């Protein structure tokens, strides 16, 4: 009985245990695994992450020089971060907010050392030299349409 009274007293004095989350900011420990971000200046479009992803959530479009990352499909395992040869992938620590649609993030690759881009630049330079006409640097399509995505999936399967 005395123990109960002591416990009641302790609980009355102590702070509430519940975290006051939506009214206080989100706190986490260092090193928490969340979604990944791609660094377009380091990526060499090797496609290792696409092949190693267990959830098949990374799609590399070599022609358009961009990475398609299906955020909602990612399982946050961090395997792509480990396999990346140029450390172009970094893992965030803050979770993704819920949304009404599925999230897809596109990253444009601008690394000049990437073999695909080197080839294109060389080809462009050759073309330029041949025609002696200023070629417009291909910025690529802003965002591929849904049809393209389907095509890409079909080819990969």
């Amino acid at each position: 009985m005395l123990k109960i009274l002591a416990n009641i007293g302790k609980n009355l004095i102590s702070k509430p245990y519940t975290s006051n989350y939506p009214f206080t900011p989100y706190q986490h420990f260092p090193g928490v695994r969340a979604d990944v971000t791609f660094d377009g200046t380091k990526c060499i479009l090797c496609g290792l992450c696409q092949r190693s992803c267990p959830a098949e959530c990374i799609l590399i479009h070599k022609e358009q020089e961009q990475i398609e990352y299906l955020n909602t499909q990612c399982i946050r395992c961090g395997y792509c971060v480990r396999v990346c040869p140029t450390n172009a992938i970094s893992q965030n620590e803050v979770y993704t907010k819920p949304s009404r649609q599925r999230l897809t993030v596109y990253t444009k690759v601008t690394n000049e050392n990437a073999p695909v881009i080197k080839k294109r630049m060389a080809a462009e330079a050759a073309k330029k030299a041949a025609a002696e006409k200023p070629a417009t640097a291909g910025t690529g399509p802003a965002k591929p349409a849904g049809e393209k995505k389907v095509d890409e999936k079909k080819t990969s399967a």
Partner: protein
Amino acid sequence: MKTTIQFGPQHPVWVEPLRLKLTMDGEIVKDCELEAGFCHRGLEKKFEWDYNKGAYLSERICGICTQHHSTCYCTAVEGTMGLEIPRRAAVIRTIMLELERLHSHLLAIGLTLESIGFENLFMLCFRNREIVLDMFERTTGNRVLHGINIVGGVIRNIGPEMAKELEDFCDIMEKRCLDLKDMILKSYTIRERMQGVGVMSEQLARDLCVVGPVARGSNVPYDIRAVAPYVLYNEIKVKPIVETSGDCWARSVVRVRELFQSIDIIRQCIPLLADAGEDIFAKSKTLPEKEYFTRVEAPRGELFYYAKGKKSKEMDRIKVRTSTYGNGPGFVPLIKGSHLADVGLITITFDPCIGCFDR
């Protein structure tokens, strides 16, 4: 007069889908039929791919015994390659396994208490469980699916600072578990509700080959950690905890007592971290080609993985036999002849994990 009742698949007692077809005579259950397969995703077929990805897939068979599944998988695949993991990785794996058992048992005890209507103690169990989850988040980076086991070792180290935190955690946890133990074991209400309900005799337990706390509650001292030691259990001796009565109460008490055993094992493991080398990962030079099987004592019982390689990165075959699969046949004879109100309690003391059951 006979009535047929469908118990499940969507039922408040279980989080997961499982269907029991009960034939009733008044309040007494005359016949019971177990229907599973609501969670069947076809994972064993999916395992026939890159063995590195398989470690992540094996975690997602079951979210409650994540670490056990991935340790068992990794050990099996390492066996097919003849790979020896570094000692530090083994110590870290053992610590994680015991932490996992701690949180799983707290969950099981909490759900058992909730099914008999003891909401307060359920909340307390979950409150204690949050400390374990915080520890997981700090050491591995995720609350439930840890993802630190890979074939060849682990990916996150436990440094000296973290070891200190683990020691503090053990002290706090032991104090809380003592409180919990007092509350459960001395409670007249819980004892009256659970004693003598769903009795599984020792003979029946041996006949049905049940595993884990269900077997140990029926006086069968079967614990893989003692019978066939794996990772670090060769050095750390584990004595199976046994209760004799075989009812719901005994199964719950086994779980409560195993909490302290787990804390004890973590305590014994922490000093070993200091002597172990710095390596946490060994790269394999060969591809999986032989056959191998491993057994791990998951919180629910024996967990079995069979792996067969075919000299390529893809595995040839992975067979998983989970603990709930071993315990599943035990539901039926216990439910037969019991009251309808006890069906939920009896099944929940088995700690069914349908994700494991169906895969």
